[in-house]
């Protein structure tokens, strides 16, 4: 008979202090890495300000203080600012979920920007074509069509990866630019372009747009909030629902478990009988669907028009990668880090107006966050840290298997290329 080696601990046996310590360790484990990355990035950003000294009317240290305080007050300082931040956060949540779910399966979705463009364009084409449809029919059609378009654009990547072994980083980059140019073509085609505005589509009719949140709040609570001040539209609710769906898919379904196994170890997944090809295709299609919806909601809720080269010039795809990585691809992590990055983005208006600092500082900070997450500075730091700031020893959620063309299985992690597995070849192995 198996005798338990250790008596199972019950709650009553443990003191409050011990529970607190356990809790701190758990939270520290989950948050330590990302928080340190953000902290380092903010410090490095401060150094950039210190060196460049953008506002010569005050001393450089004052510059740093002004920059970060205006970034914060400009994004979360008042209800209107918060509303503006949520406007930025909404599409960011969708695209980040898109990147995150692909990461779970060990896939790099650099194509969020392209999938977003395709989704937005599809919604726009439908919205401008069936203008006579009533809102209750047109809006859901546009949203569904954008989901479908994004899913197709992402699904191509998954298909090529699973059946032809084409590396998803390369295919997503290619498909991004194809999407950018095709949308540019459609935007500038006489059918959709506005008669006077050069390089812009006609504005969507009112029955094809998403109403602002405050309309419902006013109705419900009898308040008199101005929808032009509180611009956030109801798609923020969709984004929250999407986060719940993401959480459900990744942690409560067999599919979520299967893609995680594929991401961590494709070979094991193969021998466990997990349908790698089908799941690779599906996960990329879902990723594309999230991004496609991002395009539709930002068009229907905020932009109303699409403009030429707008997609290729925006950094949405990159932002999404930063958010997904900073959030460690967990649902709650994506929510928090998209609030962080969205806040950085929407705070730049004030940072520029009050502290006279160029908004591009935020891009620098974002890149630095990526560096600090990606690089293994942490093992070095870990040794220098006191015990309570431990972070997770769990395998990272961005599997090393996703680095290269083909999915590599480096059993000893020393760069031995002989164990490489192409998932498209797995079936042929026996």
């Amino acid at each position, binding site marked *: 008979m198996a005798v338990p080696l250790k008596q199972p601990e019950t709650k009553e046996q443990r003191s409050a202090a011990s529970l607190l310590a356990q809790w701190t360790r758990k939270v520290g484990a989950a948050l330590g890495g990302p928080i340190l990355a953000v902290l380092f990035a903010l410090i490095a950003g401060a150094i950039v300000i210190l060196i*460049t000294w953008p506002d010569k009317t005050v001393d450089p240290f004052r510059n740093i203080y002004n920059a970060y305080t205006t970034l914060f007050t400009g994004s979360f300082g008042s209800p209107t600012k918060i509303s503006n931040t949520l406007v930025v956060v909404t599409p960011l949540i969708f695209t980040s979920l898109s990147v995150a779910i692909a990461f779970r399966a060990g896939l*790099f979705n*650099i194509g969020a920007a392209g999938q977003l463009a395709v989704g937005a364009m599809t919604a726009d084409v439908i919205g401008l074509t069936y203008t006579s449809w009533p809102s209750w029919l047109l809006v859901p059609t546009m949203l569904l069509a954008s989901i479908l378009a994004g899913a197709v654009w992402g699904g191509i990547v998954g298909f*090529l990866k699973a059946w*032809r*072994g*084409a*590396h998803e*980083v*390369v*295919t997503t*980059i*290619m*498909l991004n*630019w*194809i999407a*950018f*140019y*095709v949308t*540019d*073509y459609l935007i*500038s*085609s006489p059918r959709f372009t506005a008669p006077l505005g050069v390089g812009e589509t006609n504005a969507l009719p009112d029955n094809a747009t998403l109403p602002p949140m405050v309309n419902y709040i006013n109705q419900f609570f009898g308040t008199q909030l101005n929808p032009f001040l509180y611009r956030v539209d109801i798609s923020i609710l969709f984004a929250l629902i999407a986060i719940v769906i993401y959480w459900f898919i990744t942690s409560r379904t067999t599919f979520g478990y299967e893609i995680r196994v594929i991401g961590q170890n494709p070979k094991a997944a193969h021998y466990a009988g997990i349908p790698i090809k089908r799941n690779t295709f599906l996960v990329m299609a879902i990723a594309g669907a999230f991004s496609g919806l991002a395009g539709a909601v930002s068009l229907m809720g905020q932009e109303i028009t699409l403009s030429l080269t707008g997609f*290729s010039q925006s*950094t949405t795809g*990159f932002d999404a*990668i*930063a958010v997904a*990585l900073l959030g460690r691809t967990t649902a709650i992590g994506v929510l928090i880090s998209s609030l962080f990055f969205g806040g950085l983005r929407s705070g730049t208006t004030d940072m520029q107006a009050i502290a006279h600092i*160029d908004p*591009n*500082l*935020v*891009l*620098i900070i*974002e*890149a*630095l966050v*990526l*560096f600090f997450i*990606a*690089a*293994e*500075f942490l093992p070095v730091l870990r040794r220098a840290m006191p015990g309570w700031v431990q972070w997770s020893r769990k395998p990272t959620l*961005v599997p*090393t298997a*996703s*680095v*290269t*063309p*083909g999915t*590599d299985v*480096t059993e*000893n*992690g*020393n*760069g*031995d*290329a002989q164990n*490489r597995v192409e998932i498209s070849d797995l079936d042929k192995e026996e």
Partner: protein
Amino acid sequence: MFFQVLFKGLISSNTWYATLQFAGLLILPALGGVISERSGVVNIAMEGMMLTGAFASVMITLAMHNIGLPDFLSVILGVLGAILAGGLMALIHALVSINFKANQIISGIAINIIALGLTSYLVFILTPSGQGVPSLPGNLRLPTFPWGPLASIPFLGLALFQQNVIFYLALLILFGAQFLLFRTNIGLRIRAVGEHPKAADTAGVNVRLLRYMCVISSGLLSGLAGAYLALGVSGIFLDNMTNGRGFIALAAVIFGKYTAIGAAIACLIFGLGNGLSFALQDLNLGSLLNTLPYVFTLIALVGLVGRTTPPAADGIPYEPGSE
């Protein structure tokens, strides 16, 4: 109708001038990509390195001009500065992905973002009231190579002998790189490091040093391409002016099956797509033509025209001695 316009485009020397110019711009970062990937470091950051180079070339040229240096010296210093700036970006990529074993794709993306952010940020800081960089006067740009009478040959003159000096430099570098990679000892070592770093290490090759050199040279080449773009073609620096050229170069690397000559042929094909887009304007194809490089590359990736396979250890950090 279509073939008529196409034919008219193909016999116009303007088309071929634009084709070769675009190909020349692409080949430098593409060669950088080939070298870097051959050594086993994935590099999707050519875009950012090129942008940094473009920025540095314009800024340094203007600064040198403003402190009173002669024009040609300012331009030369600008080009050198661009090369160094690109190399510096690559050094970061090398440091992060070789020493800190970061995911090379994330590092590449971060380089692209930081290049975009830093150059735009610095333009705002360095130009009066942040209004952007002024267009460079003709004497502060890179000149065309003086071929003398050859330049006035009908048809061929414009296409072949009126290109920028960097174009001919790029050609030299192209054949140099192909020779280096496939005909020399060091090229063999680079490829060994990319295919099987452990074997190379056992044979006494310094894996890390070699990878460092390869990544940095990809930055130097991309920086030079940035100078070509800013000082040779456009004569101005604009935010995000590379506009995806670094990614087309990446496409050329893959389409060219990770060889210098292959990448050059890919650049030519992609360049022709660009050159023809002027001639085909009447067809109202607009930006659809711009998708051609990417469509070609997808087709190549899918394996319809011979599948491309990357070097075996591409993207895997090497950790000596761990077993």
